[in-house]
C-alpha cells in the first residue's frame, strides 16, 4: 500500500498542492479509495480538530485544512462507488427569514464540512417553507438555523412548526444559534440543540447524531 503519512501531514499543514499530488500518487499506486480517505485524509482532519480544540490551531488554519481535504476528495470522487463514503450526517442550514447576516452561519457550515458533515446551505433570509421543501427533498439529519437579530428569532419556532406540519419534525434534529439565541430559548421552542459558536456546533451535531 502507498504510504499515506505525507498526505496526512499535508492535510494538517493545509498544503493543498502536496496533498493533491499525494492523493494522485496514491491513486496511481492503485491504493483503495476508502483507505486514502480513512487512513490518509480523516486522520489529518482529526489531528487538526484536536489541535484546534486545544487552542494550538487557529480558525484560518482549520479552514485551510478542510479546503485541502475537499480538493483531495474532488480528485477521489470519480473513483468512488455508491455508498463508499459515509458522511457524518447531512445538514441543512440557513439564516432565518428576515435576517440577512451570514458570517456566523457560513462559519458553522465550513466547520461542519471540515468535520465530515455534508452541508446544504440555503443562504440568508430563508422562509420556513423553503426549509421544509428542501428538507423533504434531501432528507437531512439536521436542520440548522441561525439568527443575529432578536427581531428575527421568532422565525425559528415558526420554522419548527412548519416542519411539524409537514410531518418531518421527528425525522430531523433541529439546531439553532446566533447572537441573541440561548440554551433556554432552544428549550422553549423545542429545538433539539443550541450551540454558542461554530466549534460547539460541530460537537453538538455529533452528539445529536451519536457519531464521533
Amino acid at each position, binding site marked *: 500500500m502507498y504510504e499515506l503519512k505525507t498526505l496526512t501531514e499535508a492535510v494538517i499543514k493545509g498544503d493543498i498542492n502536496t496533498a493533491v499530488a499525494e492523493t494522485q500518487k496514491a491513486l496511481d499506486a492503485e491504493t483503495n479509495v476508502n483507505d486514502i480517505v480513512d487512513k490518509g485524509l480523516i486522520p489529518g482532519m482529526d489531528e487538526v480538530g484536536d489541535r484546534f480544540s486545544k487552542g494550538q490551531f487557529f480558525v484560518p488554519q482549520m479552514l485551510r485544512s478542510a479546503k485541502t481535504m475537499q480538493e483531495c476528495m474532488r480528485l477521489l470522487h470519480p473513483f468512488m462507488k455508491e455508498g463508499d463514503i459515509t458522511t457524518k450526517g447531512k445538514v441543512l442550514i440557513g439564516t432565518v427569514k428576515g435576517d440577512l*447576516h451570514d458570517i456566523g452561519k457560513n462559519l458553522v457550515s465550513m466547520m461542519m464540512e471540515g468535520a465530515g458533515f455534508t452541508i446544504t446551505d440555503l443562504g440568508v433570509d430563508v422562509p420556513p417553507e423553503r426549509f421544509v421543501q428542501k428538507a423533504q427533498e434531501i432528507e437531512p439529519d439536521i436542520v440548522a438555523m441561525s439568527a443575529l437579530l*432578536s*427581531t428575527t428569532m421568532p422565525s425559528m419556532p415558526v420554522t419548527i412548526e412548519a416542519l411539524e406540519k409537514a410531518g418531518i419534525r421527528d425525522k430531523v434534529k433541529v439546531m439553532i444559534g446566533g447572537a441573541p439565541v440561548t440554551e433556554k430559548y432552544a428549550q422553549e421552542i423545542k429545538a433539539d440543540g443550541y450551540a454558542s459558536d461554530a466549534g460547539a456546533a460541530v460537537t453538538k451535531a455529533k452528539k445529536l447524531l451519536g457519531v464521533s
Partner: protein
Amino acid sequence: MKPIPIPTLLPRMKVLNREQALAIHTAALEILEKTGFKMEHPGALDMLVGAGCKVLSDGRVRMPAYLVEEALASAPRQTALYDQKGSKVMPLVDNNTFYGTGSDATFTIDVETGQRRRALLKDVANFARVADALENIAFNMSMANPDDVPAVENIYVYVFAEMVKHTNKPMVVIADRGKDLKMIYEIACLVAGGEEEFQMKPFILNYSEAISPLRFPENVMERLIFCAEKAIPVCLPSGSNAGGGAPITLAGAMALGISENLVGLVVHQLARKGSPFLFGPNVSTLDMKHSVVSYGCPEWSLTQAALADMRDELYGLPVWAYGGASDAKTMDAQAGGEAMFSIITSMLSRCNLVHDVAFLEYGFTSSLEMLVMADEFVGMSRFFTDGIPVNEGTLALDAIQRVACGEGSSIFLMDDHTYEHFMQAQYLPTLLDRSHYDAWEQAGSPDLYRRCNTEAKRILSEHQVEPKSDSVLKEMDELVRSL
C-alpha cells in the same frame, strides 16, 4: 504688560500620517467605483442612479468619487446632542470625547446575585438610572435585549420608553425598521415638546448597521432615510471586522468599512442635505481562535484612532467609536485592562462619541459594576489628557521658597498652596483603592468589583431621576400600548 500665558499642550495621539490617510480614502473610493455595492432599497437606488451612480450588469451599484466629495461637503461638522431638557451637553466637535453604554446585550451580571442571567426590561431601567447619575457617562444605549417585552417585534420601542422613564441624558437608539423608528421619533418629539423643538435640540441618535461586505438591506436604508428627513443624527457602521466582514489586514478593513460608511453618507445627504451624520465603521477584529468579534482588542482602538486622524486630515465629520468594554466573562483584571485601554486611547485620539461602555463577554453581557468602574477610568483619562498647566501658580516658586526655607517641620502638605490647589492639581479617585493594608483588610478586603458593586447599588437606591411630566408619561404609555 502682562506676560503671554504659556499654552497647555493637551496630550494627543496620532496613528496615521497624511499619506496613509489619503491612501485609505483613495482605496475606499476605488472600492465604490470598481467593486460596487448591493443596494436593496428601491428609493435609495433611484436617488443614487439619479445622482450619477451606475448599475452594471452584475446588479451592483458603482459610485463616482465626486458624489462622495459632495456628501462630505454638505454633511455638518458641528453636530450636537442635547439632553432631554434641552441643554447642549454633547457638542460632537473635534476635541470632545463622550462616553456612553452599548445596546442589545443578551445577558447581564445580576447586581444582587453576581450571576450571569438573561437580560430583562428592568436592566434597561437600571443602566439608564446609573448612567444618569454618573458624571463621566454622557449618554445611554439600552444595554439589553430584554427577554420580557410583550412583543419582540417592538422590542426597541419598549426599551426606548424604559430609558425615557429612567434618564434625562441623550440616547443612542436602535430600531428594526421604519415603523418602530417612527414610534420612537414620535415619543422623542413628545418629550422635547414638539417636532420643531426636537429637531432644534435632538437628544437621540440612531445607530444602524449595513452588512459587510457592501450590502445595504432595505430596512436599514429605510431607517437611514427617515433619520435624514427628520434630521435625527445617525451613524451607519457595517460590521467590517477584520477577518470576518472585512479583510484581516486593518488597512483593507478600514478601506472597506469607510467605503460602506460613505455609501450611507451619500444616500443620507441625497435624502436631505445637511442632516447630521457620524462617521465610523466599527473596525474590530474577528478572533482567530474563537471566531468572536473582540471588544477588548488593540485593533479596534487602533482603527478608530486612525479614523479620528482621517477626520482631521479629510472628513471633518464627528467620529463614532467604542470603549470601556471587554471580552472577559467577569469584571476581572482582563476587563479592567481592556476597558481602560480603549477608554484612554479613544480619548487621546479624540474620538467623539464612544459607546459600548460596560460590556463584558464581547458585548453579550452587561455589567453595572463595569459601568461604575468605567466612570472612574474616564475621569483618570480626562485628567491625563488635560495635560500639565504651567504658570506662576502651578510652578509654585513661592511655596517652594516657604517650605525649603521654613522651620524644620515644614512640609508641602501643610502649606496653603497645597490647600488651594489640591482639588485641581490631583486626580482624586473614588473607587480605586489606595488605603493602607490594615484598613483595607478590616473593611473586608474588598476588591474593585465589590467596591463597584456597592457603588452601583448605592446609586440605584439613592439616585433620583428628574421625572418627566405626567402628561408626557401618560401619552407615551398610550402610544406604547397602541402597538
